[in-house]
C-alpha cells in the first residue's frame, strides 16, 4: 500500500513537471519519468509485458522522438504570459471538475471481483493468445495504420517551403 502511494505521488509530481516546466526539454524528461513510473504501476498490476512495452516504445521511441525534434528546432523556453487567458481559466476550472467527476466515478463503483488471478495472467503467452484470436483484425489494421503514419510523416516532414 505504502509502495503504491509512494509511486503514485512520484507519478503525479513528474506529470506536473511535464505540464508546468517552461523548458520543453525538462518537460520531456518529466514525461519519460512519468512513463517509467506508470510502467511500475503496470508491473504491480500483473501486466509485465505491457510494462516492458511501455518502457521500450514510449521511453525508448516516442520520448526520443520528442527530444530529437526539440533539439532539431532548438526550441526555446516558453515565455509565460503575465496572466492566463479567460479560456485558460475556464478550461482549468473544467479540468478540476472533470478530475473530481472521474474520481467520484472510480470511488462509488461497486467493488466487485478481486478474485484469484489464474496462473500466468499478464504473461506474454496469454496476451499473444488474446491478440491473435480476438484482436486479429485490429492487429492487422494496426499494421496498416502504422504504414500510413510512416508515409504521412515522411511526406509532411519533407515538404518543401513554397515561397
Amino acid at each position, binding site marked *: 500500500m505504502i509502495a503504491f502511494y509512494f509511486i503514485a505521488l512520484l507519478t503525479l509530481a513528474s506529470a506536473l513537471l511535464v505540464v508546468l516546466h517552461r523548458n520543453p526539454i525538462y518537460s520531456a524528461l518529466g514525461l519519460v519519468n512519468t512513463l517509467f513510473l506508470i510502467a511500475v504501476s503496470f508491473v504491480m498490476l500483473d501486466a509485465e509485458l505491457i510494462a516492458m512495452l511501455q518502457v521500450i516504445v514510449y521511453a525508448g521511441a516516442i520520448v526520443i522522438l520528442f527530444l530529437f525534434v526539440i533539439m532539431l528546432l532548438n526550441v526555446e523556453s516558453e515565455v509565460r504570459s503575465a496572466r492566463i487567458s479567460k479560456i485558460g481559466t475556464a478550461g482549468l476550472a*473544467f479540468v478540476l471538475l472533470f478530475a473530481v*467527476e472521474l474520481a467520484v466515478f472510480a470511488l462509488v463503483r461497486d467493488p466487485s471481483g478481486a478474485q484469484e488471478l489464474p496462473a500466468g495472467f499478464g504473461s506474454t503467452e496469454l496476451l499473444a493468445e488474446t491478440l491473435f484470436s480476438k484482436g486479429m483484425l485490429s492487429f492487422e489494421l494496426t499494421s496498416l495504420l502504422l504504414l500510413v503514419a510512416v508515409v504521412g510523416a515522411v511526406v509532411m516532414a519533407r515538404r518543401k517551403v513554397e515561397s
Partner: protein
Amino acid sequence: MHPEHAHTAAEAVVLATSLLRWIPLLPLIGFGIGVFAASTNRRSIVHITGPGSVLLAFVVSVIAVSRLWTLPAGGAVVDNVFTWISVGMLHLDMTFRVDALTSVMILIITGIGFLIHLYSLGYMHEDADEARFFSYLNLFVASMLVLVLADSLPVVFIGWEGVGVCSYLLIGFWYQDMANADAGRKAMITNRIGDAAFLIGMFILVWAMHDLGAASLRFEDLNRMAPQLGAAAPHLVTAVCLLLLIGATGKSAQIPLYVWLPDAMAGPTPVSALIHAATMVTAGVYMIARLSPLYVLSPAALDVVATIGAVTALFAATMALVQNDLKKILAYSTISQIGYMVLGVGVGSFSGGVFHLMTHACFKALLFLGAGSVMHAMSGELDIHKMGNLKAKLPTTRWTFLVGCLAIAGVPPLAAFFSKDMILEAAFASGHVVLWFIGLTAAGMTAFYMFRAYFLAFEGESRVDHHTEHHLHESPPPMTIPLMVLAVLSIVAGWVGLPHGILWGDAWGHYLAPVLASHEAHEIAGSTVLLLTLVTTGVALGGIFLAYSFYLKSPGTADRIAERFHGIYVLLWNKYWIDELYDRLFITPYVIVSKFFWKVVDAMLIDGVVNGVGVAVGKTSDVWRRLESGNVQHYAAAMLIGAVVTCGVYWWLA
C-alpha cells in the same frame, strides 16, 4: 390499340419513303451554314447555300409530288422520321406526309420561296448582315415546310411556332431602329395570343379524342373520328374550332388580331413577300382546310369563320384605300385577300380557299417584289405621292406590277379572277348573300386601291425629286427574273380551276377533293354562275375605271372627295383607331398591372423576403462565426466541456 392499325381496308394507298425528311432538312442545313457564315463573316457562302438549299428542297418536293401522282386519288406519301412522344395512350410520331393539299403547299413554299431567295440576292446585296438574313430566311422555309408536311397537330405547332419566331426575327431584322424592333415584338405578342388559343384547342381536342378511345392528334385519325366526335360532343367541336380559329386569326392576320401585319412591313421587302404575303400568313387558312372534316361538323363555327373572313376582307380594303405607303397598301391588301380565303373556307368552299391561297401567293409575292424593286430604285422611298411615271425608267418592274394588279383585281383571265370568283360563288350558293355582297364590295375596292397605287406610282406626272430621279434604275437580273416568272405564274395560276363545264372544269377541286371535307354543294344554275361572274368582273373593272378617272384622267378628284367626306377619310386614315383602342383597352391596363407586380409585389415583397432572409442569416452568422477561432486549444476546451457535461448528466441520472 395503336391508331395506325385501325385502318380499314378502304384506307387510301400510302407510299412510305425517307425522301420527305429532306424537304425541311435542306433549308435547315442552309440555316446552319448561314449561321456559321454570319458568325465568321463569310458572306459569299450564303449566296450559294441560301437559294441553293431552297432550290434543292424544291427539286425534292417535285420528286415527292410526282411520286404522289403515281398513286390513285386520295393516296399519300409518308415519311416516319422518329417517334416523338409515346406516353400512355398518346403516341406521337414525327411523321411527314404529302397528300394533295400538302403537295400544293410545298410547291408554293419551295417554288416561290426559291424565287424570293433569288430576288434577295439582288435586294440584300449591299446589306452587311446578308448572311444573317439568309440564315433566317432558310430557317423560315424549313419551319414552314414542317408546318405543312406535318401529319399531326403538334408537329404543325412546331412549324407554327418556328415561322412565328422567324417572322419576329425578320420583321426586326434592322433592329438598330427601335421602331423595327417594336414591330417585331408586336407581331410576336399578337401571335402569342392566337397561339395560346391554338394550344388550348389542341388540348381540348386530344382530351375529347381520348374519351373516344383514340388519343391521337394525327389528321388522319382526327378526320376519321370527326363524325363520332361530332356526335359525342358537338359543343366541344365548336369550341375547338373557335379556339383554333383564334389561332388562325393571329397567324393569318384576321380581325381581331390583324394589327401586327401592317407594322410587319418594317422588315426587308423579300420578307414581306415570302412570309407576310405568300406563305406564313396563309397558315391559318391551311390549318382550317386541313381540319375541314372537323369544321363542317360545326356550322356555327363555320359561320363565324365566314363572317370574320368577309368583314376582314372589307375592313382591310377600306383602310388600304387611303394609305400612301406602297408596302402598307400591300399589307392591308394581304389582310383583305386572306379574308377572302377565310371567307372561302368559312362558306364550305375549302378548295376555293386553298385555290385563292395559291393564286394569292403568286400575285402578292409579285406585287411585293415589285414594290421592293421600286424601293430599290427610289433609295427606300415608299410614298406613292412621291413617285409617278416610273414606267419610263423601270419597264420590267412596271409591266410585272401591272400584271400583278390586274391579277389581284380579278380581271379575266388572270389568277384571282378564277379563285376570287370561286369563293364569291360559293358564298352566294351557300346562301350567305350578305357575305357575298361584302365580298363583292371589297373586290371593287381591291381593284380601286391597287390601281390607285399603280397609277400614282407608274403613270402620270413624275413627282420624284431630282436627286432620286438621277439614280433611278431598273433592278439587276436576280431581281427582275423572279418578277417575270411570278408574272407568268400570276397569269396562268388560275387556269387550273375553271368554272364547271368549261374545258377541263374544276380540276383543282377534283384534285383536292379526297383530302378536304365535302360540304353539301349547292348546285346553282349555269346562268346564275355566268351572271355572278359578270357582276364580279364588272365591279372589278369599275374599280379600275374609278381609279383611272380619279388619279390619271383628272387628278384632284380624289382630294375633292376626301374633302367632301372628311370624317370618313380621317377615320380610314387613322385605321379606325384600332391600334389606339387596343392600346387603351388592353395594353395600358396590362402595363399598369405589370408595374404593380414589378414595383410592389416583386421589388418590395419578394425581394424584401429574399433579401431579408439573406441579411438575417448574414447577421446571425457574423455572431456565430466568432466561435471559429482557429485556435486548437479552444476546440479542445469545447470538447472538455462537452465531456464534463456528458459525464455529469450521466452521473446525475445514474
